[in-house]
């Protein structure tokens, strides 16, 4: 982990309200699932950094993919080539590699795509399910289809791309067809993660989920990002964001 200045190389809209930014900065090697804390301005307003997953990092160039939600991501979307950002990371614990005997299934929904895509690209095997409301919400569709060794399925609620329905339905269908040990990697809305976790139990699969929680520091000192686990409260930013799904106490 380092605090470094990053230079915006490119920043463009790649789907409805979703931007892909490339930044030049020297990071240590990352594990998919790890994230950065981005500081957006020189002034103290906005005050807190924003957590965003690393999509890729190679030779001093990092990619992030983000949805414009509120003030911070709007400011980010306004950054132009040549502007500077401060970047802290890579932070947290990423996904574990699938074991050699395991079939890997990647499931992403909403803003959960970046860490999942990073993992699928790194592993180059298995199946990826991307779920969205509609076609326009799916970024990097071409790029996903070209990950060598990874089979990609999209689900959309309105049927505008791929299968009509939910990602978890497609996951269920897929798991039925897999006849070897399986590991599910999921990132997305809590409802999706919960369902993925129970499907994993039903099918006897291993399941890792990447959790989102509001953060202040991102490196483990403020206790903002608590998540209830079977081992008590854990910090999403250092113990996670990736957790073994069976350890999470999902609550109501």
């Amino acid at each position, binding site marked *: *982990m380092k*605090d470094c200045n990053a230079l915006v190389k490119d920043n463009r809209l790649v789907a409805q309200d979703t931007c892909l930014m490339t930044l030049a900065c020297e990071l240590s090697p990352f594990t998919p699932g790890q994230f950065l804390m981005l*500081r957006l301005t020189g002034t*103290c*307003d*906005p*005050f*807190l*950094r924003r957590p965003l997953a690393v999509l890729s990092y190679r030779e001093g160039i990092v990619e992030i993919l983000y949805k414009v939600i509120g003030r911070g991501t709007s400011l980010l979307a306004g950054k132009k080539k040549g502007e500077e950002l401060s970047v*802290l990371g890579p932070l947290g614990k990423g996904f574990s590699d699938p074991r050699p005997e395991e079939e890997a299934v990647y499931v992403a929904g909403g803003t959960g795509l970046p860490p999942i895509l990073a993992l699928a690209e790194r592993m180059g095997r298995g199946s990826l399910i991307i779920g969205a409301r509609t076609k326009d919400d799916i970024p990097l569709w071409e790029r996903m289809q070209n990950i060598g060794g990874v089979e990609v399925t999209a689900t959309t609620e309105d049927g505008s791309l791929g299968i009509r329905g939910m990602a978890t339905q497609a996951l269920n269908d897929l798991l039925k067809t897999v006849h070897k040990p399986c590991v599910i990697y999921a990132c997305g809305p809590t409802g999706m993660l919960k369902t993925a976790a129970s499907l994993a139990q039903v099918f006897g699969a291993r399941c890792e989920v990447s959790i989102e*929680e*509001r*953060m*202040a*520091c991102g*490196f*483990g*000192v*403020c*206790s*903002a*990002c*608590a*998540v209830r686990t079977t081992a*008590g*409260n854990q910090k999403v930013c*250092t113990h996670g964001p990736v957790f073994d799904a069976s350890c999470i106490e999902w609550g109501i």
Partner: protein
Amino acid sequence: MDISTRLAPGLCLKNPILSASGTFAYGEEFARMFDLSLLGGVVTKGLSLHPKEGNPTPRVCETSCGMLNAIGLENIGVDAFIAQKLPFLGTFDTEVVVNFFGTGEDEYAHMAQKLDIEGVSAIEMNVSCPNIKKGGIEFGKDPKILNRLVAQVRQSTTKPLIVKLSPMVTHIGEMALAAQEGGADALTCSNTFPAMAIDENTWKPILGNITGGLSGPAVKPIALRIVWEVSRQAAIPVIASGGITSWRDVVQFLLAGASAVEIGSFSLRDPLCFGVIIQGLIRYMHDNSLESITEIIGKLRTP
């Protein structure tokens, strides 16, 4: 140049920069980023007799030039701290200030006793917690209750005793004197300001706990006034806390009367700020031919 500062008999910091409680955990994470020995002192997360789980999430929220937190004093408990964290902190050349709280006077006293051990340089009492025996009124909101509490803790420890005041009171000077007369060696001014945030879309409070404490640059002007007010009324040293982000802020708080400062929220945003601030302070003193920070402390020039 002498930038050391004295907070109590037997408690002299090599420089006036401390971490603040709750934004530094127990030091391990920051120690991976820089050598903690550069700090005047570290203040630990607030400890209680038993481990505490804290509040439901969301626990933090951004505000204009500041943040709210409602962590709910989650901590590993004093015993785990002593066994697992204190020895590590002891490996650095810095003062270890242990922040703590209790739910009643006896618990505070018991905590103070437990912390009266080697490796602890001083203890900092957080009195912004409800006294569950007294119908939930905060210890830090009534001078009599505060005075009694401090006096009882005083008798339970040989360590320098720092009392961290709650800012949201009518007469902060009265609270300062109550703590001083109870036997405090120094005062921290001050804790966060009770505040809240609301989401106009969901119609719900943003924090799981509804209300939380405001910190960061937003509150600095109030904290500065409190330090100025308290340091002119109290005879014991004041440690400033509230919105410090730069060596300029540090000089301002020293001028207002603080003998040292704690840096909290800003170190969440900029974990390497401590070194930058210490270097800036040294440079400022050099540029202004100041030999000792005692030449700055309380030297505000008023008409």
